[in-house]
């Protein structure tokens, strides 16, 4: 549990950090909360020669409102998200997710940007960002780039970020009207990561029709995904338990589920259907169905 030697840089500006990425290439790693990176280093599964600590760069850890969006700095900790009054009122799906991540210590250090950029398939945070069709902003040598959540996750621990880009901000919509949200997960008992985690956001019309819905699924596949088939089956419909159950039964369709000692693919797929149904049900209940 002793990491290999590495150099450490704590730049004061984003530009400086990006320059460091450019000059050190593959051997450099960004340090945010460190809750995924440091264990990998201690196990010597990762041995970067340089760590660039983003912690001294001002404004990366702020949560604020801009028009109909909420802007979340990539260095916001899970605890900040869990306890943010703004998020709890205007976009409760993120606090609902944050509060079931790891334990108190992890939530105090781990960051949303770190979690998204690391793209562990069993991490919780990608699910709500996908459900909310969030936007991710990254800055590199060529300036800022905007990425849709759906385009961000490419595969097992792979994202659309280039090696010289830094994820700086996540934007999610301000939820208004008859909205309901829920995040439910079946945890892997040892790690607390998701065997399956399902995030649901939905909006009802005045007459109770499901106007819009977003469903993000973590844990099931090598990359987190949006369950569009399920969303399609519910959009424009009057939600009732049997419809929800039928729609949710398509959650794992066309997905190649992961398998490990903690759960078979078959079980994960069934959990995904079950948790999708329950999360939709819960979100609908909160929206006042």
């Amino acid at each position, binding site marked *: 549990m002793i990491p290999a*030697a590495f150099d450490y840089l704590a730049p004061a500006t984003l530009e400086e950090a990006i320059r460091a990425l450019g000059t050190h290439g593959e051997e450099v790693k960004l340090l945010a909360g460190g809750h995924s990176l440091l264990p990998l280093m201690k196990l010597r599964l990762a041995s970067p020669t340089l760590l660039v600590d983003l912690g001294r760069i001002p404004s990366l850890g702020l949560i604020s409102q801009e028009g109909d969006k909420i802007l979340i700095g990539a260095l916001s900790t899970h605890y900040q998200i869990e306890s943010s009054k703004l998020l709890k009122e205007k976009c409760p799906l993120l606090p609902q997710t944050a509060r079931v991540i790891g334990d108190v210590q992890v939530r105090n250090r781990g960051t949303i940007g770190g979690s998204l950029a690391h793209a562990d398939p069993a991490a919780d945070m990608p699910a709500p960002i996908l459900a909310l069709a969030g936007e991710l902003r990254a800055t590199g040598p060529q300036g800022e780039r905007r990425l849709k959540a759906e385009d961000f996750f490419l595969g097992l621990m792979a994202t659309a970020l280039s090696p010289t880009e830094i994820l700086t901000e996540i934007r999610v919509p301000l939820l208004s009207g008859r909205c309901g949200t829920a995040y439910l997960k079946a945890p892997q008992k040892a790690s607390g990561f998701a065997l399956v985690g399902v995030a649901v956001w939905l909006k009802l019309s005045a007459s109770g029709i499901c106007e819009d819905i977003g469903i993000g699924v973590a844990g099931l596949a090598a990359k987190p995904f949006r369950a569009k088939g399920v969303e399609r089956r519910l959009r424009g419909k009057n939600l009732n338990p049997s419809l929800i159950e039928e729609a949710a039964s398509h959650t794992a369709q066309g997905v190649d589920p992961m398998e490990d000692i*903690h759960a078979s693919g078959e079980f994960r797929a069934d959990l995904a259907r*079950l948790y999708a149904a329950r999360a939709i049900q819960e979100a609908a209940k909160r929206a006042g169905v």
Partner: protein
Amino acid sequence: MPVSKLVGAKVRRREDPRLIRGLAHYVDDISLPGILHVAILRSPYAHARIKGIQTEAALQVPRVVAVFTGSDIGDRVGAVPVASQNPTLRVPKRAVLASDKVCFVGEAVAAVVAEDRYAATDALDRIRVDYEPLPVVSDPEKALGRESPVIHSEWPDNVAFRWTLKQGNLSKVFKDADKVVKQRLVHQRLAPIALEPRGVVARYFPGEGELTLWSSTQIPHLLKTQLSLMLKLPENYVRVIAPEVGGGFGSKLNVYAEEALLGYLAMKLNRPVKWIEGRRENIQATIHGRGQVGEVEVAAERDGTILGLQYRVIADIGAYHQLLTPGIPPLTGLMLSGAYKIPAISIEVTGVFTNKMSTDAYRGAGRPEATYVVERMMDRVARELGMDPVKIRRKNFPKPKEFPFKTATGLVYDSGNYQLALDKALKLVGYEKWKRQQKRLRSQGRYLGIGLSTYVEICAMGPSAAMPAGGWEYGAVRVEPTGKVTILTGVSPHGQGQETSFAQIVADELGVEIDDITVIHGDTAVVASGIGTFGSRATAVGGTAVLQAAQRVKEKAREIAAHLFEADLEDLVFADGKFSVKGVPKKGITLEQIALEAHMARKLPKKMEPGLSATAVFEPSNFTFPFGAHICVVEVDPKSGAVEIKKYVAVDDCGKVINPLLVDGQIQGGIAQGLGQALYEEVIYDENGQLLTGSLMDYALPRAKDVPRFELARTETPTPVNPLGAKGVGEAGTIGSTPAIVNAVVDALSPFGVTHIDMPLRPEKIWRLCQAKEAASAGGRR
């Protein structure tokens, strides 16, 4: 006699202030001038020949001092010892560093010594070992097959030992029985995971020829003896110190390769050395517990009377024996009568070598396996006979007047009232209410389960005749010239709290304030002799030795007092910490005054030795047999396989209670560990012998949020085996809880036709069983 004030009182642990303030000294807190740090290279293969090891590159790493391989050490360090005896035992030689071949993932092959831990760890990556992989067998049942690779070529197969016990006319009993119920049961491998991993510091003074070894151990005195043999040093030149030890659960009741290796390195290099185990090493190379696969058959009459029990079990030994490895499965055998009158019992144990780390004592050590077999089968038989699980237990308990009760396995249960503990637990849980609730919820498609376990265990180990290395314990009490009292004990507490409970015992006996008492343990140069802390023995055996030493001190003090008063011994009374002459209570003499006189030694009776101290060695006449009743209520979600514990009641009887806080703490921690086995924990190796649960990211320990509130109660049936009346409580929670939880889950799933599930009860297993069977038959049948 003074009025008993402290024994039985809720005295807060005197150990805690230093622990919670971070002021305790563990092995890793020991720093010595010139200390070097050791890192150990471990095999990534489960079975491989070592064709060569190149260490030159490692020696080039800055700050590296030396690199050692097995061939560097040769036979200068003896093999890892085995203490348990068995005429059929095969003992493969386990060198402290492997030189010819490795037999499990994690076996040590080289050691790097460096000026710091970082350099030592960096150098590990530079050692090149040329392995030739050999065929692997990790499944103990397959290891017995004809086609299996043989791990130790000295013998024709992988059998490590056999052990059998048979009593009663089994063939007749099983032929004549109304009902015979069979079941295959798996007791999965567990990792003990003490919060503090192992650690060793060794220092050698070449001038004096003295080796001092600090180790996170439960048995400093036994370790001292074994180290002297392994290192070929005279025993009186070896000193072992167990400083603060952060938990053991049996995993530190051992003599490990690393302990002798560090001693050797300190002597060879003439510098102090330190090795601190990492968590991954801890899961790979510290002993595992359990690891049994058995077939049990129970014969019963229609009315629920149990007639006989047969158990054939394969014990997964791992690649080598550790200190007590072969002694654990026989404990399972001896305890197979459980809390019941079973006239005919047989057990056949086959210990089997596999390419894995050794199994050995882990909290309960053989008794959880026995209790699980018996308690699972009581439920299985009850179900087959359509009986309530409470009724079948009551039917087969020995009655209080039948104690001392002799089992078919040859044990004599000292005292007990099993019915009383069960009745108390049933009342506390509200058994009938839960049964009604269960019926009601089933009609709504919700599945409650109620599980019982009425266990008995074997504790206070034990009479020396039945132990591999002595079952007595040493205690000493010394009154200093200022009247302060020092207790020295041969037990080695590492969380149990005897710095508190032993002080309570002596405070009452000598009438002194508890704050004037200190308890010293864990240093072989300070405490003359001892056996150690394991097998729920420390209070019952070690506490009795301390009590007897205190009684001897008091007798001597009485003689001195009588001499000073010029009175007859019989005319002296002792009250409120003072001796006085009968009828003259105002003119008393305190222990403090007597201690000073004893040390000044000017006014002592003729021929009396100066000083005020005494030692005692207590040899128990029997084990003790604590018991209790645990009841667990669960709700199972058949769709997700999730288990929720809704209520947990434990009524435990550990004999006379010295400190209820310590007893409750032991029970709570014990249940948490038993719950871990029932629901979450399993050491998993794949067919290549690779360890798949090598970190706490994959080995699932129960966390605080997984542990429900337990409702604890007690009955108190003293043991006649020792004057304290205390039986022991260190392992009871673990032993009693596991079957209660499994029985509850199986009960919940009975509408699905489920009669058994092997542990751990992971959601997927439950989900599969529920998928397989429609809940169509839900309802009426229990």
